[in-house]
């Protein structure tokens, strides 16, 4: 089998892994006699036809697999073409793509062959060739294979910039159902080990300058959305716990694209739940950058996201007692909670209001989305001129353009829209929305 064919098979089987970030590590200089560096901000080298960023050469070492996880395209019982790269082939591809500036580095994962330990050793071999033979200083993201021995994970962490263990499904019940060969424990064990080692390493680096860095870009994980009946609240709470307990850099959410005929999961003709994935990412950002907790975004009574509104708008309209805020005085933490004001514009407001009082015209210059923000703010004690607050009107302004369009296309244009009692048919329709990115 030639390289092109292998590349096709093994990129195809890796495409459902969402993580393609190259951020989080600054290694200017790299190896002085080698090639490559890493930029802290991360660099996207291209964008695929689905609009997702391509920053790393994302491939599997092999798609042969011992396991039979029902959500996975590479499960043992699935009839797909199989291939396997040798470590040298992967290293050669990486270096040649990197020299042409096609990629920022390598994302290497693999199906489980022979045993978790053997698979992990093979991945380590690829990374060793790159780092030692080619003196490659670019970004490497490697998958820690659940079940591999702690010594191997440690070796992996020293060679890679980021390692990830995919939690795949949000509950033990779902795992039992769809991934009988994996247990929550076998996933959380390496995750805990990696967290510990990253912490230990941060002490070592202070003490010994030459201590090798362990996974300097941290650890991430991925969850599949929509293959099991877990609710958004469960998922979000799990993410929050993982951010706290395991200090993860990122949790990725991957809308499930049906890849089989298992009777447990959505049939192959169903569309991936892209809107839900989008809402989860929005909420994830609120957790990481906006000081929200999972309990504020959703709760026991509201287990799923409002399909019409983004989580921040949804939170804001349920807390009318906190608004409107005076932009010229409100603390930074509260500015962050105003729909239409993001981290950048909140920082700009705080800086600019020290020089001059801000009015609505100024806010627009600072990048605030006034369309949404006007309902929640005051400038110098005044509401925006000509602002009429009706529930339907406000709702229209708070919804994203694509949601509004979809509603109109479905004939909901003239209907009264309400914050609190969206009729079930409406919700169902919007849930089917796709392409809302």
């Amino acid at each position, binding site marked *: 089998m030639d*390289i*092109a064919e292998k*590349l*096709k098979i093994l*990129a*195809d089987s*890796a*495409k*459902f892994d969402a993580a393609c970030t190259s951020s989080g590590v600054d290694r*200017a*200089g*790299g190896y*002085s*006699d*080698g*090639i*490559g*560096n890493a*930029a802290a*901000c991360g*660099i*996207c*080298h*291209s*964008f*695929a*036809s*689905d*609009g*997702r*960023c*391509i*920053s790393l*050469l*994302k491939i599997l070492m092999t798609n042969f697999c011992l396991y039979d996880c029902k959500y996975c395209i590479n499960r043992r019982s699935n009839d797909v073409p199989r291939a396997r790269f040798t470590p040298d082939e992967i290293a050669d*591809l990486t270096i*040649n*793509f990197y*020299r*042409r*500036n*096609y990629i*920022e580095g390598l994302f290497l994962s693999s199906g489980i062959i022979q045993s978790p330990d053997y698979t992990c050793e093979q991945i380590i071999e690829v990374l060793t060739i790159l780092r030692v033979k080619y003196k490659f200083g670019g970004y490497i993201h490697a998958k820690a294979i659940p079940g591999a021995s702690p010594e191997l994970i440690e070796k992996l962490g020293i060679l890679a910039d980021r390692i990830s263990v995919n939690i795949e499904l949000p509950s033990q019940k779902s795992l039992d159902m769809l991934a009988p060969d994996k247990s929550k424990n076998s996933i959380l064990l390496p995750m805990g080990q990696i967290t510990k080692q990253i912490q230990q390493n941060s002490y070592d680096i202070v003490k010994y300058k030459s201590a090798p860095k362990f996974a300097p870009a941290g650890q991430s994980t991925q969850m599949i959305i929509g293959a099991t009946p877990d609710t958004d609240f469960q998922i979000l709470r799990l993410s929050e716990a993982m951010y706290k307990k395991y200090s993860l850099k990122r949790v990725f959410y991957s*809308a499930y*694209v049906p890849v089989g005929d298992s009777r447990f999961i959505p049939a192959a003709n169903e*569309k*991936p739940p*892209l809107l839900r994935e989008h809402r989860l990412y929005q909420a994830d950002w609120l957790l990481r950058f906006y000081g929200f907790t999972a309990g504020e975004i959703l709760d026991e009574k509201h287990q799923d996201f409002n399909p019409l509104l983004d989580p921040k708008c949804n939170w804001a309209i349920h807390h009318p007692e906190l608004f409107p805020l005076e932009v010229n005085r409100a603390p930074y933490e509260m500015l962050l909670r105003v729909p239409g004001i993001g981290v950048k514009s909140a920082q*700009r407001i705080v*800086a*600019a209001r*020290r*020089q*001059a009082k*801000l009015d609505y015209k*100024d806010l627009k*210059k*600072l990048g605030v989305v006034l369309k949404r923000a006007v309902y929640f703010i005051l400038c110098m004690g005044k509401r925006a001129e000509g602002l009429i607050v009706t529930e339907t009107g406000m709702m229209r302004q708070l919804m994203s353009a694509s949601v509004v369009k979809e509603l109109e296309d479905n004939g909901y244009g003239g209907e009264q829209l309400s914050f609190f009692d969206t009729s079930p048919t409406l919700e169902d329709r919007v849930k089917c929305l796709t*392409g809302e*990115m």
Partner: protein
Amino acid sequence: MFNRRDVIYSYDGSFEGLMCCVFESFVRKEIPEAIIVGDPLQLSFSDVLEIETDSQKAMRVSRAIPLKISDFTFDTVCKMFLSCVENKDLLILEFLHKGFKYGRNIEHMLADDTVNTVNKAVFHCTHEAHLLKGFVRFSDYNGYLAAVIEPKNKVIPLLASHFTDRFRNENFLIYDKTHRMALIYFSQRTEIAENIDFELPDANAQEEYYRELWKCFYKTIGIKERYNPRCRMNLMPKRFWSNMTEMRDELGITENSANRILQKNERYN
């Protein structure tokens, strides 16, 4: 104190030259109507004042900026100089007038019109440079790497340190077709050349081989159930595609849809 006068400054297009315009504007206590490079193309009723480049004067201004305003502001001015905004020279002058008046506070006067315009232009320039760090595509010619880009802003100086650090042991060239300038890195020495012409030679068999592999990877990695060309175009504007190995093929396929979008945009404008 500074009056707007019906006078046009003309300078040689160099950064030093622009600094001399700033110097002259302070000496003459005036803000010109426009600042142009070289001779005026159109007949104008205003007087044209030719500003001679004097490195002494230029030095006095460019030293005063970090001293009297801030390092950050000097950095902003340097980046603004690379911008593609039409009246960038006059904007820099107005920006510096405010800077010398308000000192380092200018950094935070984000709601001020001049500061806001300058910040937006600088962002446009640095953002384009950031995108190009990813979108530059090299071809290998027997060990020498070469790439062509067509940016709107003069991004070459902003790309230099990134690429020379990354490919520190390679020899390479990045040619900016729009501004006819190039970043040349040869035997660990960096040079920025201006007013040159360059065409990429034909690729050899090995180069073609890796190009094909890359295109194959690109086509495979997209999930077709999530096809979203609009999103892709937002993140990777079409004007970059013609110089990107994997996108040249795509240009043909979606030409019609792109035209439709362009027409729609024109209507809005």
